[in-house]
């Protein structure tokens, strides 16, 4: 009968009108800023540099300025300048550190390739999305100091991933420590060579 299609359409809209008051499947609006939707753990937006502890972020950066992420980043939005001197990292080995580490957040597209290619677990994806600023130029270029965040923060935003990373790092450090100890023991057991090798 002419019009039956129209009437069934009207019936569906009526059901939705009534449903939108009580049916959770239809009540999907989250009224942002008052209500905040819970972000899934895998959510990623803009990288940050991981530092071992919060007290001395610049001192305990894991990043060793190897510039792999700078080369691999598709939009080339990372700029690194190596430091002149070296400082001991978590395992005591002397490593370089980045004197300058800038990320231009107006270019970065949060594609997370830098996190994948970084061999030192030094850069991870943050979950910050509301970083509006009034200044169009300098404020969008995040410096080393603004990027560095402690490992504890990493545990809060990506708990499972952070746990795996820490486990892996712990095994590596233990292996490195044993190797160093074995090397030291072997050196001590071996006859005294004429002069101690220069500092490695």
């Amino acid at each position, binding site marked *: 009968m002419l019009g039956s299609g129209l009437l069934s*359409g009207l019936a*569906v809209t009526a059901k939705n009108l009534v449903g939108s008051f009580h049916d959770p499947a239809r009540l999907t609006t989250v009224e942002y800023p008052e209500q905040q939707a819970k972000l*899934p*753990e895998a959510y990623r937006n803009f990288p940050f540099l991981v530092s071992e502890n919060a007290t001395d972020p610049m001192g305990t950066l894991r990043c060793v300025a190897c510039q792999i992420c700078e080369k691999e980043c*598709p939009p080339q939005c990372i700029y690194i300048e190596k430091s002149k001197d070296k400082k001991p990292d978590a395992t005591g080995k002397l490593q370089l550190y980045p004197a300058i580490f800038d990320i231009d957040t107006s270019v970065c597209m949060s*594609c997370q*390739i830098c996190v994948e290619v970084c061999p030192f677990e030094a850069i991870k994806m943050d979950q910050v999305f509301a970083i509006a600023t009034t200044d169009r130029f300098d404020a969008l270029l995040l410096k080393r100091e603004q990027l560095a965040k402690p490992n504890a923060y990493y545990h809060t935003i990506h708990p499972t991933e952070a746990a795996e990373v820490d486990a892996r790092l712990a095994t590596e450090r233990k292996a490195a420590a044993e190797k160093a100890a074995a090397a030291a023991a072997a050196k001590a057991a071996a006859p005294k060579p004429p002069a101690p090798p220069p500092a490695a």
Partner: protein
Amino acid sequence: MIASDISPLASRLSSGAHTRAVTDPFHGDLLEVSMGPHHPSTHGVFRMQVTLDGETIVKLKPVFGYLHRNHEKLGESTSYLGSMPYTDRLDYLNSMTNNWAYALAVEQLAGQPVPERAEYLRVILAELTRLLNHTCLAGFLLQDCGCSGTPLMYAFREREKILDLFEALSGSRMMCNFQRFGGCRTDASPEWLAAAKQLTDGYGAFLDEYERLITGNEILMARTQGVGALKPDLAISAGITGPMLRATGVDYDLRKVDGYGFYPRFEFRVPLGDHGDTYDRYMIRVLEMRESIKIIQQAFATLPAGPVMDPKAKLRGFRPKPGEAYGRIEGPRGEIGFYLVSDGTPNPYRYRVRPPSFVNLTLLEDLCLGHTVADAVIILGSIDIVLGEVDR
């Protein structure tokens, strides 16, 4: 569209098959109207230079390129991995299928094996993207027909649920950057699989409600049946692929033809239309959604365990041996393919994308001639184009 009077199409048109001779007294001047690029219903920055005789279209010249971002030349100066996030921005509605097509092409180029669980996961994600895309199209097409937003909002409500799944898996709703050469970046957790299974089981009910809302609607049938009819031979000669081709009755679905990604293991049917008009194109997509649900459910049932990334796959310093490869998959809009030429260096020598909506768009004038302005909008909507993919 180059000067159209030399192409065979024009000679068929100027014979006035369905356009009256313009010089008889009852017709005044021709009105030249430019619809777009800033127009509410052209799905992005796309312009139609339309010459009108009264309300009927006498000549239509599509003008696009406003969103050209030099994607292919850029591909030649970035590494293979570096181009992967850019493929998300080609067809920004279906990033998972773009990634898969690119990954497939590179894997054929480098002869890179892919573990079974990764292939199953890719099939599940591709079919979820097809659901997402066809739901979006149904919403947009009916929005162009004039429903003030209601079907579009229902479509977006369901789309958001799928995008939440993608966000929980890949980290971002639309820019997933999830496939790698040799598998997927991360594995799907059991909770994710349970959530996805619950969504697809409930999707059939949504489609039933949607069809009750619209498909039997007399006004929609009047507006779309017989509008923009496409004949099979013209479709084949113009290289049309995807639901637009199947709506004309041509049985060509890459999932059956190529049999990539373990599709032969799943039992699903390919719907075919008879008239190739806007109603058929819409209905074919709705029926394809029902088939996709079946595929996803079968994939969930037989999802094997095992690694999701080939252990020997190299992430950096990836240098495929010199040669060329063309990887293609059945994207929601049609055949999306990547043609790569490698010269042994980490960057591809030639990086070419075969976008389905660009090819399908070439027939816009043939479909619109003789119709009114209101029909041209719906025909454009039913071709389902995304300007990111058309302009690259």
